[in-house]
């Protein structure tokens, strides 16, 4: 099941490989079908998921079964190392509360992305092959429970992304692409060292061999005491934690490492921005939850405070930067930096409320930001500019668009009744309840105001008031005597057309529904999160 959902896009990619590149429509349809099938599978997995099982660590008897679900565990590579026994790598997939939501999100966003890729005209074949490769890799990262496998998927994501930004991107795409590639690679290569170190430090309780299994690694008792990353080796454990954390923080992106994001977003085509903001950023925080924290709980507890501070910096710093942007897409990019800050803050809280909030925020940010980028893409398609001051008074002429934008914007600023609010609220509840991050939370609350500030300000400048004299569109008086606007060289529907609605409305419904009744998602999370909090809590540590 999980293998299928992971490799469907790649299969689609191979099919596309066979299609002559002139058959653009077929190519699109093939990948759309793949994405939809992925969605169906995601729904099946969701229905079949039993929220009672915690995940995170191994179940009874050290085996993943009974704790993880939809487990697929096949020996993949087993080779002899001279004098070091054997290197065992497993093809090990499985989901728990942490990954299931991300799986669903990924399936959803991938499908949306395919729809939004319809407008791509240049080298369609290559585009969709890379796109499907990317989709597979993302999905794989979320379901992989073997560190090696995870790492493979993780790295496989980079290259397609590089090309998708670099070939189909904006004017400054080369720079953005290579920057993205180098930045993320810089983060991930060190992960490789940590991975190896962990391998030599952990033994599988069942087989007794060294193992890459994240499940085994999440149980501190499986560590060899004086191995390089064993409990005795405090210094290297800290180093490893920091290295891993930076690796993931670059993906998040966390404050000092975030500068690749605005460039990448501004240059990337709309669907790629959607994928990037919707799924890729989550991989950073997911990695932290899945790998970084449970493997080094004591370091995590020592570092909660720092992580929280970085979260607060992200929130406020991102908000301020967004406030200053003139390019709408750049503003949205910074807004997602700000919003990922909430995730970091929630994680730093280290209690259930905070972590649930963080994960829920990951999900919501996925849907909401996807919406934002799609909406930005809509106006960019029409006006070929994203400069905020090039618009004004759009609400009069594009009411549906304006309405959707309003909903999305308010969702992004955390209005109650829309999903973003609940996650942010939970994050704050958690962060404030934990003594460690209480004061950080009190500072971060400012983010709420400034978040509202930049969103409302851009809303006002673009949609309210009158048309600006140097706007990117002309006013023409239609035959019915009313004023209409006309974009230069845009002959499509002025307001949203069917495809765009098909992309936006589902996201919007999800946002509203989850804002009113969050349990469908939260219900899957809570058991695992409570388990995770237990793993991270000192009580468990004292047992090892």
């Amino acid at each position, binding site marked *: 099941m999980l293998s299928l959902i992971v490799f469907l896009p790649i299969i689609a990619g191979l099919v596309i490989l066979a299609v002559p590149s002139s058959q653009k429509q077929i190519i699109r349809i093939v990948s759309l079908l793949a994405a939809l099938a992925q969605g169906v599978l995601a729904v099946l997995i969701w229905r079949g998921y039993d929220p009672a099982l915690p995940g995170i660590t191994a179940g009874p008897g050290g085996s993943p079964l009974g704790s993880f679900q939809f487990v697929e565990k096949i020996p993949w590579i087993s080779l002899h190392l001279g004098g070091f026994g054997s290197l065992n790598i497993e093809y090990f997939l499985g989901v728990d509360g942490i990954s299931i939501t991300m799986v669903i999100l990924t399936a959803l966003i991938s499908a949306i992305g395919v729809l939004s890729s319809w407008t791509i005209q240049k080298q369609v074949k290559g585009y969709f092959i890379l796109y499907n490769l990317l989709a597979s890799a993302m999905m794989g990262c979320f379901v992989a429970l073997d560190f090696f496998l995870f790492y493979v998927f993780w790295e496989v994501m980079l290259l397609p992304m590089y090309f998708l930004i670099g070939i189909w991107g904006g004017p400054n795409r080369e720079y953005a692409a290579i920057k993205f590639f180098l930045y993320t690679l810089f983060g991930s290569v060190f992960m490789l060292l940590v991975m190896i170190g962990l391998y030599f430090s952990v033994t599988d309780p069942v087989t007794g061999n060294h193992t890459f299994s994240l499940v085994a690694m999440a149980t501190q008792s499986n560590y060899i005491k004086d191995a390089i990353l064993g409990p005795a080796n405090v210094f290297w454990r800290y180093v490893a934690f920091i290295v891993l954390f930076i690796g993931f923080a670059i993906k998040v992106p966390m404050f000092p490492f975030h500068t690749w994001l605005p460039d990448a977003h501004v240059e990337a085509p709309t669907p790629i921005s959607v994928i990037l903001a919707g799924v890729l950023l989550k991989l950073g925080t997911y990695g932290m939850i899945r790998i970084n924290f449970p493997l080094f709980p004591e370091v995590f507890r020592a570092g909660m405070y720092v992580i929280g501070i970085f979260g607060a910096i992200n929130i406020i710093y991102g908000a*301020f930067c967004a406030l200053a942007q003139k390019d709408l897409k750049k503003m949205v990019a910074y807004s997602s930096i700000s919003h990922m800050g909430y995730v970091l803050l929630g994680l730093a809280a280290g*209690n259930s409320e905070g972590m649930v909030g963080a994960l829920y925020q990951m999900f919501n940010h996925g849907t909401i930001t996807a919406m934002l980028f799609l909406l930005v893409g809509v106006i960019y398609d029409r006006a070929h500019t994203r400069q905020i001051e090039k618009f004004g008074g759009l609400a009069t002429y594009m009411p549906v668009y304006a309405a959707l934008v309003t909903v999305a914007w308010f969702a992004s600023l955390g209005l109650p009744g829309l999903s973003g609010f609940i996650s942010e*609220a939970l994050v704050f509840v958690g962060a404030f309840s934990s003594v460690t991050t209480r004061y950080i939370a009190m500072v971060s609350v400012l983010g709420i105001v400034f978040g509202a500030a930049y969103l409302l300000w851009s809303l006002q400048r673009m949609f309210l*008031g009158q048309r600006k004299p140097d706007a990117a569109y002309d006013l023409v008086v239609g035959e019915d005597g009313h004023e209409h606007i006309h974009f230069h060289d845009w002959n499509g529907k002025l307001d949203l057309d069917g495809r765009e609605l098909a992309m936006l409305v589902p996201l919007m419904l999800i946002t509203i529904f989850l804002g009113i009744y969050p349990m469908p998602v939260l219900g899957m999370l*809570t058991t695992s999160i*409570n388990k995770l909090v*237990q793993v991270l809590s000192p009580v468990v540590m004292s047992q090892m």
Partner: protein
Amino acid sequence: MHSLIQLSIVVLLLPLLSFVILIFFNRRLPRRGDFIGVGILGTAFAISAYIFWSVIVQTYDPAFRIAWDFTWIDLGNVPGVGPLQIKMGVVIDNLTSIMLAMVTLISLLVHLYSTGYMAGDKNYGRYFAFLGIFTFSMLGIVLSDNLFSIYIFWELVGLSSYLLIGFFFEKQSAADAQKKAFLANRVGDIGMWLGILILYSQFHTFSFEQIYANLAAGKFGLSNGWLTAAGILLFMGCVGKSAQFPLHVWLPDAMEGPTPVSALIHAATMVAAGVYFVARIFVVLTPDALHVIAFTGACTAFMAATIAITQNDIKRVLAYSTVSQLGYMVLGLGVGAYSAALFHLVTHAFFKACLFLGSGAIIHAMHHEQDMRWMGGLRKHMPWTFATFTLATLALAGLPLTSGFMSKDAILAGAIGFAKTEGGGIFYLIPVLGFFSAMLTAFYMGRQIWLVFFGESRTHLKPAEDDHHAAHHAHAGHDAHTDDHHQEHGVHEVSWNMRAPLVILATLSIFFVYSPDPLDGGKGWFMKMIQTPATVVGEANHQIGDLRTPVSTATLAAAVPNVEVPAAEAGEHAGAEKGAHSYADMRQAEIVHAGHAAHFTAIYISSIMVLLGISLAFIVYVFNIIDPEKTAIAIRPLYLFSLNKWYWDEIYDATFIKGSMLLANILSWFDTTIVDGIVNGVATLVRNFAFLNDGFDRHVVDGLVNFTAFTVNTTGAVLRKLQTGKVQTYVVMLLLAVFGYFVFYLTRLIY
């Protein structure tokens, strides 16, 4: 589930229904579906009237309270806390049922009124949809039984106010105003949110009941300072919503919205929500917090009143008077005159709504002329409006026989009592400010009445092409109101559907609705049904130390010996006995007692003040004994100070707005320049190495975004110079390498 609960939920959801219907289908419906809005609100009002009747009239019990809740979010078995749920629920007690009736009634009237006022607007249907969602969220606040849901609806109210203020979003001023309103509210909200968090972090629940119970049981883990902070922070929410100083600035600007909206949201209901909220959390407020609240209220009341006297825009005068009156209510809560404050809330809601709708009628009739200087003599043309407006004005000014008189005097009495109890001194400032504001109120209302209704029409005096007037063309353009000739002959009485609300509201601002005795609201049903709850923060109450023994209100009455206890109070006590779920503390007892004692003092002083105010207005505007222009010039600084609203807008703009924009620009500069790898610096640095300019590739620099780029490049550039292409140099290198290591090894061998 109690039947009233079911009904209340229906009431809550009906307006939402109307919102959903209208937002999606208004263009398909006849008359853009306004009848749906009105009809649904009518139903809602009918139901809440029934609730009101069965709660207040049938079960005549001060302690009446029924609640129901359900699990909204289930966080499972949280380590360290145990099973943790976040619940949502509704509570119905006297206050709720009164508020329900009030909100739905005013909302209904505004709906009705709007069918006339907004007729022909191109977004007519959307307007009613927005009214619907506002009513929904307002009712949500009223019904909530826990802090979290209150916060949710709080924000939703903010949203709907945002939407309605910016209803004429083509107007730049409107767009600005709506943003300002939302942001100002958010500032208050984060305070409120932090307050909520403080309480939650201790008890892991949002429910009022459980929080109060835990507090009463002394389970609060943090210091009393935190508790006071929690109180003040929660109060910040009220500061935002109820436009208290220093966050009052948004309310006057909010008058950019349609006038009925101003009546509904910015006079009667939403701004009252703050006061309502403070009343809800009254029991967790420590004395220090209450002092802060009292002073805030006093300052607000006074400041707004001083501003109101010089405003020329008819709606702005009313706006500032609203701020001022809200100040009264907050003051009342602060001083512990709990019932009085809420009483004033209700009375004020009616007469202020009446005033706004009246002004709306005037503006409507004057073709969107809002400047009082160009009105005058309207009483002949608009008798109904004149009558109702005047009645409401008297209520606002607080003349006897009006509702306003009773409520305001109750508050002032409480203030005096409070000052006495707190041992005088600085605390007397509060009643003093209160009384002074009362005088100012009387003055500016008198001024308004006179300028608008009396004298001769001054429309012709209006300077041609006044920018103020031009600003309204945009709005006027959307009003397909039939007659379009701009002279006073066009002025005529408004149609029935706008007149009826005026009449109803005016009626509701007469004393007998509330109390048989025109001089004492305390005898009325309201004051009896709404009683001061006992605080639950005893151990945080420095005045009563660790007094934790339950004291029923009967002993409280016993502690009120000398002044004649009105007969009705016995019944009040009986009711209190029944609902003796709470225990009082001495401080409350003393304040209430002193309040009763000061009852008549308050009446005398305030009546004098009011008369002073009115007579002053007469002196100035009727008998022209004092010429306002001359006076204005004489005391120009003061005049300007008041005219420019104490320059708050300017101050905020200069400090917060400019400041944060500056910070934002600095940070984004920092982001693109410094954080982004000092890319520019590196680039220039590297370019300065002229000798390695050949094949310099900026991507290398920008690509490895940090100093590594720099070092990597330069080293690369330098190293590659070793590759001279001369084979003999290579050999030399080889020898040097060998020799170098040899020497290195030698040194190591020696030392």
